[in-house]
C-alpha cells in the first residue's frame, strides 16, 4: 500500500506552525514546534512504524519551524515596526530547543496515541495535556531571563513588560475566556441546535455585573451598598444575571421557528451595548405621578428651555432611583467604562485573613485560575452531555418532532439549554472583567459573537475538545498571527518598497489596505462559509459512537 508522503493534518500542522514561527520567532518557535509535534503525533498510525515516522516527521517539522524562527530572528525582527521578542533575538538557544522539544513531543504523543486500551490512552493524554499546560507559562517568560536561570521562574515578572513579553500567556488566558464562552455556545448551538447570534450580550451582562458589584463604581454611588462584594461571590451573581436575561429573552422567542431566534438574539446583542452606553444616568420615577405631573403641571413649555422644563415637571414626582438631579444613578458608567475592577482574592472574608490576592499584569496566577475554570467547565459539560438532559438536547437537534414524540418537552428543554449557555457566557464575562479590570460598551461588540461562533463551528459543533481547539486556533490567529502579519507586511513594505519614496500619504494608504488585522472579520466570515461548504461538522466532529468503535 502506497502511503502518501504527508497526510492533510500533518501538512496543515507543519505549514501553519512554520508560518507562525516566521511571524513570531524567538522563543515562540518552541511553542510552534511543540504544537506541530502534537498534531503530527496525533495523526500518526497506531503502531511502531507510526511512532518512528512521527518522530522523523516531528524532527523535520521542528527543523522547518526552527529555520523559520531563524529567519524571523535574523531578518524579520530587524524590519521597522516589528516587535522584537527580546534583545538577544539572534540567540540560537530557542531554535535548538525547538528542534529537540518538538521532536520529543511528536514521539511522546505518537506513543500515547498508540496505546490500544481506550481508557488508558485517554488517561495518558490527559496527563500529557496537564503537564503541557502546567509547564507552558514558564516557557513563555521573558526569554533571556527564563533561559538564564531559575530566577525568572521564581520571580516571573522581573524585567518583563506586558507589551513585549508573555505574548502567549496573555493570549492564552484571553483564549481560555473565549473558550469558556465557546463551550457555553456549544451547548446552545452545538447540542441543542439553536442559532444564538447575540451571545456577546450575556458576556456583557456577566462582565457588567462584575464591574458593578466588584469595583469602586458601586462604592461611589449614592446607595446603602457601599462595598465591593468580591470576585468569588459576584461571579455567581454574574452567571445568575446572565441566566435571568437568558430566560427573559428565551421564554417568549424559543417556541418560534429557528431562524427567527437568530434574528432576535442578533437584535439583543445589538441592544445590550446600547443599554451599556446609555445607562450612565439612571433616574426612575413612579410612573403614575410622573405621568400626571408631566401632563398637567403648570410649568410653561414656552418660557423655559427644555432642560429646565423637564426639571420643573419632575418637582412633585415620586422619585425612586437617582433622585439628585446633579448626580443620577450611574449604572454602567456609559462610554467611559468601569475601571478598575478588583481581581479575585483568596481569604479576606468571614474573618479569614487575606491569603493571596491576584494582581493585574501578573499573568501566571491568572493563567492557572483560568485553566482551572476551563477544565472544570469542560468537565461539567462533558458530564452534562452524557446525561438525560444532554441526550434530550442532542435528540432535539437531530429531530425535533421525533424528540417531542419521545416525551421531550421541546420548549422547556430548549430554554434550559439557552439559560445554561447564557450562564457560561456570563461566567466568562465576569472573569474577563476582573482580568482586564476595565470594561466599556465597545468591548462587547458584535464581532465577539462572531468570533465565538467561528470557534464552535471551526472546532466541531457539539464536541468539547473540538470547541476548545477551535477557540485556540481562532484566538491565536486573531491575537498573534494577524497582529504579527500586519507588522511583518508593514515592515517589508516600508523597508523594501518605500525606502526611496517620500510620500507618507501613499505609505499610509498601502498600510491600511495591507493591514492584516483589518481583515479579521472577513477571515472569520470566510472560516464560517468555507467550513459550511467543506466540513460542516468542524475539524473534530462530535464523536459518533461508530467512530469510537473504529478507533
Amino acid at each position, binding site marked *: 500500500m502506497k502511503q502518501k508522503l504527508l497526510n492533510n493534518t500533518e501538512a496543515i500542522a507543519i505549514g501553519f506552525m512554520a508560518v507562525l514561527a516566521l511571524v513570531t520567532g524567538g522563543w515562540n518557535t518552541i511553542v510552534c514546534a511543540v504544537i506541530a509535534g502534537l498534531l503530527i503525533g496525533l495523526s500518526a498510525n497506531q503502531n511502531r512504524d507510526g511512532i518512528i515516522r512521527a518522530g522523523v516527521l516531528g524532527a523535520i517539522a521542528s527543523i522547518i519551524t526552527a529555520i523559520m524562527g531563524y529567519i524571523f530572528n535574523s531578518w524579520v525582527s530587524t524590519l521597522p515596526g516589528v516587535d522584537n521578542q527580546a534583545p538577544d533575538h539572534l540567540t540560537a538557544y530557542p531554535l535548538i530547543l525547538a528542534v529537540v522539544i518538538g521532536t520529543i513531543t511528536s514521539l511522546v504523543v505518537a506513543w500515547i496515541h498508540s496505546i490500544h486500551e481506550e481508557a488508558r490512552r485517554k488517561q495518558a493524554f490527559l496527563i500529557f495535556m496537564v503537564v503541557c499546560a502546567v509547564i507552558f507559562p514558564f516557557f513563555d517568560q521573558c526569554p533571556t531571563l527564563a533561559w538564564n536561570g531559575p530566577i525568572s521562574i521564581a520571580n516571573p515578572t522581573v524585567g518583563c513588560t506586558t507589551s513585549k513579553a508573555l505574548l502567549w500567556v496573555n493570549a492564552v488566558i484571553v483564549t481560555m475566556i473565549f473558550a469558556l464562552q465557546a463551550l457555553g455556545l456549544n451547548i446552545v448551538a452545538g447540542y441543542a441546535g439553536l442559532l444564538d447570534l447575540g451571545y456577546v450580550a450575556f458576556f456583557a451582562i456577566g462582565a457588567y455585573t462584575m464591574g458593578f458589584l466588584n469595583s469602586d463604581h458601586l462604592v461611589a454611588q449614592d446607595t446603602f451598598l457601599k462595598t465591593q462584594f468580591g470576585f468569588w461571590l459576584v461571579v455567581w451573581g454574574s452567571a445568575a444575571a446572565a441566566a435571568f436575561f437568558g430566560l427573559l429573552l428565551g421564554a417568549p422567542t424559543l417556541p418560534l421557528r429557528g431562524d427567527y431566534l437568530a434574528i432576535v438574539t442578533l437584535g439583543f446583542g445589538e441592544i445590550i451595548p446600547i443599554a451599556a452606553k446609555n445607562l450612565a444616568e439612571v433616574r426612575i420615577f413612579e410612573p403614575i405621578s410622573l405621568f400626571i405631573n408631566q401632563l398637567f403641571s403648570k410649568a410653561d413649555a414656552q418660557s423655559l428651555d427644555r432642560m429646565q422644563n423637564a426639571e420643573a415637571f419632575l418637582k412633585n414626582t415620586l422619585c425612586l432611583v437617582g433622585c439628585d438631579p446633579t448626580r443620577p444613578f450611574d449604572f454602567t458608567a456609559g462610554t467611559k467604562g468601569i475601571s478598575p475592577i478588583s481581581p479575585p482574592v483568596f481569604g479576606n472574608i468571614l474573618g479569614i485573613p487575606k491569603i493571596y490576592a491576584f494582581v493585574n499584569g501578573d499573568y501566571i496566577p491568572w493563567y492557572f485560575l483560568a485553566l482551572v475554570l476551563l477544565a472544570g467547565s469542560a468537565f461539567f459539560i462533558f458530564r452534562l452531555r452524557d446525561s438525560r438532559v444532554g*441526550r434530550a438536547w442532542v435528540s432535539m437537534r437531530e429531530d425535533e418532532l421525533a*424528540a417531542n*414524540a*419521545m*416525551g421531550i418537552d421541546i420548549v422547556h428543554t430548549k430554554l434550559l439549554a439557552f439559560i445554561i449557555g447564557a450562564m457560561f457566557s456570563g461566567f466568562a464575562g465576569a472573569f474577563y472583567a476582573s482580568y482586564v479590570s476595565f470594561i466599556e460598551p465597545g468591548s462587547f461588540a458584535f464581532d465577539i459573537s462572531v468570533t465565538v461562533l467561528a470557534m464552535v463551528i471551526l472546532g466541531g459543533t457539539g464536541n468539547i475538545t473540538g470547541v476548545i481547539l477551535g477557540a485556540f486556533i481562532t484566538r491565536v490567529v486573531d491575537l498573534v498571527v494577524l497582529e504579527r502579519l500586519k507588522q511583518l507586511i508593514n515592515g517589508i513594505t516600508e523597508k523594501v518598497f518605500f525606502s526611496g519614496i517620500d510620500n507618507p500619504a501613499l505609505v499610509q494608504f498601502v498600510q491600511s489596505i495591507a493591514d492584516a488585522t483589518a481583515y479579521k472579520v472577513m477571515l472569520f466570515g470566510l472560516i464560517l462559509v468555507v467550513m459550511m461548504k467543506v466540513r460542516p461538522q468542524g475539524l473534530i466532529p462530535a464523536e*459518533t459512537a*461508530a467512530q469510537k468503535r473504529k478507533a
Partner: protein
Amino acid sequence: MAQEVLLEAKGVTKRFGGLTAVNKVDFVIYKGMIAGLIGPNGAGKTTFFNNMTGLYTPTEGDFIFNGKPITGLKPHIIQDRGISRTFQNIRLFGQLSALENVLVGMHTRLNGTVFEAFFRPKRVIHEEKRAREKALDLLDFVGLGRDSAEMAARNLPYGFQRRLEIARALASDPKLLLLDEPTAGMNPQEKKELTELVDHLRKELGVTVLLIEHDMKVVMGISDRVSVLDHGEKIAEGLPKVVQANPKVIEAYLGTGAAAEGA
C-alpha cells in the same frame, strides 16, 4: 376475557383548510390486542395517528386514553401518559448511538436534572445504570443485539433502523404502541420477521399495539381486529377475515372497475 377499553376515539375529525383528512372516526382499542388500521394511501391513517399523539389537534372529537381525555395535549405529555409511536419514514436521532436512541425514549421515565448530571449522586448513577441495562435488553429483544448498541443510528442497516425505532418506542414502557407502517420497504422475509417481532412483543411485554399497515398479509396475519379507513372515513371494522370479505373494502382497495373486470 374481560375486555377493558384502553383507548377510545369519539367522532374524531381533522380538517386542513377545506380538506377533511379524517372524518368522524369512532374507534376502540381493548387492552392487550393488536389492532390493525388499513386503507389506501392518503386515506388519513397517519393523520389519525398524528391526532392521537398530539402532533395535530383534532378539529372535532375526542381521544380518551385509560379513562382520561388526551385530546389537545402536547405530544410529550401524551407519550408520558403511555402512548408511544414509530414513524412511517424512520425518524431516528441519526448522530446518537442506538443505545442513546433508546435512552432518549426513556426520557420521561428518568429523573436526572442538570445538577444531578454534574454531581452524579448515587441515585442518578443507579438510575443510569439500570436504564442502560434495560436499553440493552430492549435492543436484544428487538433483535439488534448488544453489538450494535454503540453504532450511530444512521449507520445501521435499514431493517435495524426500523427495529431500533420500535425499541425506542418501547423504552418508556408504553401501554399502547403505535406502529406506522413498520414493514414499509422490506422484502417478504424481513416482513415476516418483523411480523413475528410484533406478535412476540405483545405476548412478552403485554403491550397493546395499533398497527398501520399497507401490506394486507401482515395485517391480516397478526391483527385481532382490523379497521379500514378510506377517504378519511371508517368504512369497515371487525375480524380480519370478515373485513377482507367486506364489499366496501374490496371496492375501496381494488376499485369498482377492477371488481367488474374480475367478476
